[in-house]
């Protein structure tokens, strides 16, 4: 499987994603420039974290109009894999590939910390190797991760993939770092090929960085693609 990592002006996790795919997963990967429309040969598109266009106006609001995004939409419609991490998730929401929107964190602060998330479904490309209920420890680092959606719209268009939980897997308010509705930390479209999440698996995929729980998302994608 070939990975493509989109570089928007202001992305800043693209190198980290590249490193994990290349050096840890040992899979082919290339960067995709926001102003191009060429996804040729790419099976899995990663929209990395960062502050595309400075997060000015609203996170993801400007990036969603980048030329590459039309190609990403078509790719998703064809069943290609799309993973939006943090700012990438925000872009997927703004682009309407996933329902809902992000508000400022309840604390109004940028928050960088490890959190626990519970895997709510293994029925997506990026959780196919998880079991439902599995708990992952992943870092978050964002200022706008307070997810909001109309519940009916959400149910009609997406499934919840990750919820913030405590170490024992309970979805409780104390474990919710940003005020997100129902503790939502990640979503997938109904087909399961498009996933967005706030935590950053790419900085949590090597033992020397203190954890490897992030690896399961990309490893799942590899297997899902093989068994497709």
């Amino acid at each position, binding site marked *: 499987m070939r990975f493509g990592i989109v570089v928007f*002006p*202001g992305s*800043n*996790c693209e*190198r*980290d994603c590249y*490193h*994990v795919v290349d*050096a840890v997963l040992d899979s082919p990967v290339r960067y995709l420039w926001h102003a191009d429309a060429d996804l040729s040969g790419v099976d899995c598109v990663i929209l990395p*974290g*960062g*502050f595309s*266009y*400075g*997060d*000015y106006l609203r996170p993801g609001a400007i990036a969603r109009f980048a030329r590459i995004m039309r190609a990403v939409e078509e790719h998703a419609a064809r069943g290609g894999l799309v993973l939006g991490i943090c700012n990438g998730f925000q872009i997927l929401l703004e682009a309407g590939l996933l329902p809902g929107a992000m508000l400022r964190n309840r604390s109004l*602060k*940028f*928050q*960088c*910390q490890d959190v626990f998330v519970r895997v709510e479904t293994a029925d997506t490309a990026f959780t196919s190797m998880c079991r439902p209920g599995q708990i992952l420890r992943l*870092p978050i*680092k964002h*200022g706008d991760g307070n997810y909001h959606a109309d519940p009916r719209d959400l149910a009609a268009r997406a499934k919840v993939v990750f919820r913030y939980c405590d170490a024992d897997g309970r979805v409780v308010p104390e474990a919710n770092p940003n005020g997100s509705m129902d503790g939502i930390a990640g979503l997938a479209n109904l087909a399961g090929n498009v996933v967005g999440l706030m935590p*950053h698996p*790419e*900085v949590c995929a*090597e033992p*020397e*960085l*203190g954890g490897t729980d992030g690896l399961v998302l990309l490893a799942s994608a590899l297997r899902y693609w093989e068994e497709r």
Partner: protein
Amino acid sequence: MSKQAAWEAVGLTEEEYERCRRLLGREPNHLELGMFGLMWSEHCSYKTSKVHLRKLPTAGPRVLQGPGENAGVIDLGEDLALVFKIESHNHPSAIEPFQGAATGVGGILRDVFAMGAYPIAILDSLRFGEPDGRSRYLLGGVVAGIGWYGNCFGCPTVGGEVYFEPAYAGNPLVNAMCLGLVRHEEIIRGRAEGPGNPVLLVGAPTGRDGIHGASLLASREFDEQAEERRPSVQVGDPFRGKLLLEACLEARATGLLVGVNDLGAAGLASACSETASRAGTGMEIDLDRVSRREPGMSAYEVMLSESQERMLLVVKPGGEDVVAGIFARWGLEAAVIGRVTSDGIIRVREAGKVVAEVPARALTGEAPTYMRPEHEPAYLTATRSFAPERLPDLEPAESGRILRQLLAAGNLSSREWIWRQYDHLVGANTVLRPGSDAAVLRVKGRPLGIAVSVDGNGRYCYLDPRQGGALAVAEAARNVAVSGARPVALTNCLNFGNPERPEIMWQFREVVEGMAEACQVLGTPVTGGNVSFYNETLGENIYPTPVVGMVGLLEDIALATAQGFRAAGDHIVLLGLTGNDLGGSEYLKLVHGVVGGLPPHLDLEEERRVQELCLEAIGAGLIRSAHDCSDGGLAVALLESAFTAAPGAHGFEVDLACVPARKAVLRRDCLLFGETPSRIVLTVRPQHLEALLKLARRHRVAASRLGEVRQARVTMRHGDDFWVDEPTAELEAVWRGALACTAEGTA
């Protein structure tokens, strides 16, 4: 305007004005005078500090670039190098904390990537008044501003320090340090080599930001345009800063860049004259080609604007289109504004006319230098004569209560509220995150690790500047060493009051000499730094505050050692002797309300041996955790080690009667809270205890087993006297929550 008013308006003295007239051989015009005024300002010229800064050792086997460039550079082996520098943004942050701090971070990032390096880490060193009222507002704004810039830019903020003291109430300190990685052959210097080479101004358009015009305005007649001329606060744009980084590094990869300099204080005037004078060249600049944000800007404003996110590039002949194309692709402006010349003159044109013509060297190298008068401050008589040993000792029954008071104190409680607002992970290199003595970063593709810590205790320097300067270097080195890294070099930021006061000059020289001595003994040269004077409000000066940014190297990243206890049953060992050191301590200030006495005595040779021992023990794989004893003393150090792991999980039991003592009788308060330096708390597996103690004897370092790591309960006793015996979780809650409560006003 009279001549006198004109030089005064740009901050020059009559002698300085005469000097620039002599150098020019004529009267400077308004723009030229402005350029001299800024370039000869204390901030740009170091005219007061230079003579003393020469005392700092700057050479060493690893030093590739010492002071004088945008940043210092040390060799990491093979073809890699580390670029790093610290800088202050105190005055802007006092006026507008969010933007002031943000632009401080932006500036230090540009210094590092101007050298061709990719920034890998930021650290911040902060000082505020007691966190209420305006100081609380400043704290919130500064932390948010640092976070905003670093987070958005995508460089992790991995460490720092913060102190709260009334001395900083009128004058907060905001120092930011940045580190970057570069291959040897890719290092670029801020030199305008090669007459004929095109000069490009790239990045943001130029606006009326931060022009040093406030004083000028005040001495001019007030007309209807006055409002328009007023300089505005610099506003940062981390988004554009990141684009500038990407474009600069892409341009560097073409091999077309000859020299690069960031635009900071004194804007174009500074960037042009510094790059030219470093290379012994001159430069011609056409102001009509400078892209502007606002109409109607004067030549003066364009030359001296401090608009952020700009860089000056000197490019190989014919390379300008390729380079400009790269910037355009990143959505940035790039204009050829002039070329390098061979006559050593900075020649500025506007609308075809020459509006300034000044030798580059006159603006930089020919700036005056001063040996200002100095005088020992009178307050020292009082502080020195304060004898802490006459105070009643701590009653054991009081230990628990006092301990809680210390754990909740602004200077000792957890800093998590701050560093959680910083992305400390982006870059995927952070092996030891904030919350340990030093941050440790890996270098991808190498076994190598980089440790870094910033330290400086202003209170110690206030009480004894020489000793305080040495202590700052020693503590920074120790923080790096306990993390498993050998300290190799440092950058420093010297924050002081008004140098025209002899007392401040005396403090300054003493601090620098103390630092120099420590650098010699510890083998850590200085590769650069920054001086911030005039930190004075209404005649109140800050504590003399050197901040040391120490860099250390680990041969093997697997040796990175954190301060947190690892497992119950591990033995706790204290390295180093403890004395009756209460002077200058947090305990003395908090419990007795006194800032007095002498700071703890530092024996540099002993410090070196303790650090060597620690490094060797870590290298031998004996050590499970290591934490230096500093603010708050042994009790606080032990508790921090207990807290750092999973909340409430660890505890310990120690017998303080086992503490190796310098004096026959140790006071109880000194045992618990005294801040004797050169001490380290280590933990080892039981089977390694003997090996460690043997190693200590070989290094002639006092070492003693104090007790062991336990679960969930903290017990500190002296023989059979139990001083503290409490659940870890309760103490930890106090420590962890205190800063958030004060900072958010929920206390």
